[in-house]
C-alpha cells in the first residue's frame, strides 16, 4: 500500500474536518439520539413489512441535509435506503 500512497496523496485534513463536521452537525441539529433513530428504524421496518419482505440487514436510515424547497438553506431530512427482497402477493 505504501507504493500506492505515493501516487494517491492522502485525503487532506481540511476535507476530513469538513466531512466530520457535517456528520456531527446533522445529529446536533436534528437533536435526535441514536436510541430514537433505532426506534424510528424499527417502526419503519414494521410498517413496510406488512406489505413487502425487506432486507433488514441492508437497511440504512439516517438524518441528512437537503436543500429546502423554499429556496434558501438546507433542512434536515430522513434518508432511508430499504432493499426489498420480495413483493408480497396482495392478499385480497
Amino acid at each position, binding site marked *: 500500500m505504501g507504493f500506492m500512497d505515493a501516487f494517491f496523496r492522502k485525503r*487532506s*485534513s*481540511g*476535507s476530513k*474536518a*469538513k466531512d*466530520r*463536521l*457535517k456528520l*456531527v*452537525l446533522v445529529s*446536533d*441539529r436534528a437533536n435526535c439520539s441514536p436510541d430514537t433513530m433505532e426506534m424510528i428504524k424499527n417502526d419503519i421496518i414494521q410498517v413496510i413489512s406488512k406489505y413487502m419482505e425487506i432486507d433488514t440487514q441492508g437497511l440504512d436510515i439516517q438524518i441528512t441535509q437537503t436543500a429546502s424547497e423554499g429556496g434558501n*438553506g*438546507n433542512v434536515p431530512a430522513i434518508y432511508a435506503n430499504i432493499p426489498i427482497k420480495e413483493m408480497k402477493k396482495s392478499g385480497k
Partner: protein
Amino acid sequence: MSEVIVITSGKGGVGKTTTTANVGTGLAQLGKKVVLIDTDIGLRNLDVVMGLENRIVYNLVDVVEGSCRPKQAMIKDKKYPNLFLLPSAQTRDKTSVTPEQMKALTDELRDDFDYIILDCPAGIEQGFKNAIAGADRALIVTTPEVSAIRDADRIIGLLESEEFKQIHLIINRIRMDMVKKGDMMSVEDVLDILAIDLIGVVPDDESIVIATNEGEPVVNKPTQAGKAYENICRRVNGEEVPIMEFQPDGFFKKLANLFRRGY
C-alpha cells in the same frame, strides 16, 4: 439610529474579546459614538485588551444594581473621545445580572450611543442569555476548526430560536497557506456548513498578539488583520465592501499588498 450588537461564539478562545475591541475602535474611527460592554462577569478581559485596566472605578454590576450611574462607570478610551468601555465585575458571577436588567441597560444607552457592543462570555448559559437579551444583531466569531464551528452552529440555532433577524459571521485566524495545502477549511467550506451571511475574514496575524500585549487594538495599524477589521467595521456601518480574496504571499508581495488592497 442606534444599534446593539452582541459578539459571541459559543467556544472560548476564538477571539470574541479581540473582535469586540477592534470592531468598537474601528466604528469609533468612523466617527460613531460607541460603548463596549464586557458582559463576562467574573472573567474581566476587555479592559486589558483595550489597555484601560488601570482606570476602572465602577463596573457593570454596580450600574445594574444602581450603585452608580452608567456614565460614572464608563471609561473613556485613550485615543478616541467617542469610544467608551463599561467594564465587567471581577469578583462577582454571571447570576449577578439578569437578561431583563441587561435589556433595560442597553435600551437606556441607545439614547446616547450609535453603537452598543457587547462582548459575550463563552458558553450558552446565563452569561450568554444576559448578553443577547437586548441585542439587535449578532456577530458570530469562529475559527476554521471543527470544535469552533460546531459551537458556532449551536449558537446560531439558539439565536434563531430567539428570533434573531441579523446574524453575521466573522471567520477569524484563517491561514491561507494551510488552506492552499488543504490542511485548513476554507472560507467557502465554513460558509457551506454554517449557511449564514459572512461579514468578514480575519487572517491569523502576529500583529494581533503584539497589539494585545501592548493593550492597543490593531484596527488602526497597517497590518493584514488591521485592514480586515477596518473592512468589517465599514460593513457593520452599512457600506458595501467586497470580501477580498487573499493569497498566501511571500514577504515582498505581502508588503506590496499592504499598500494596494484590503482583505
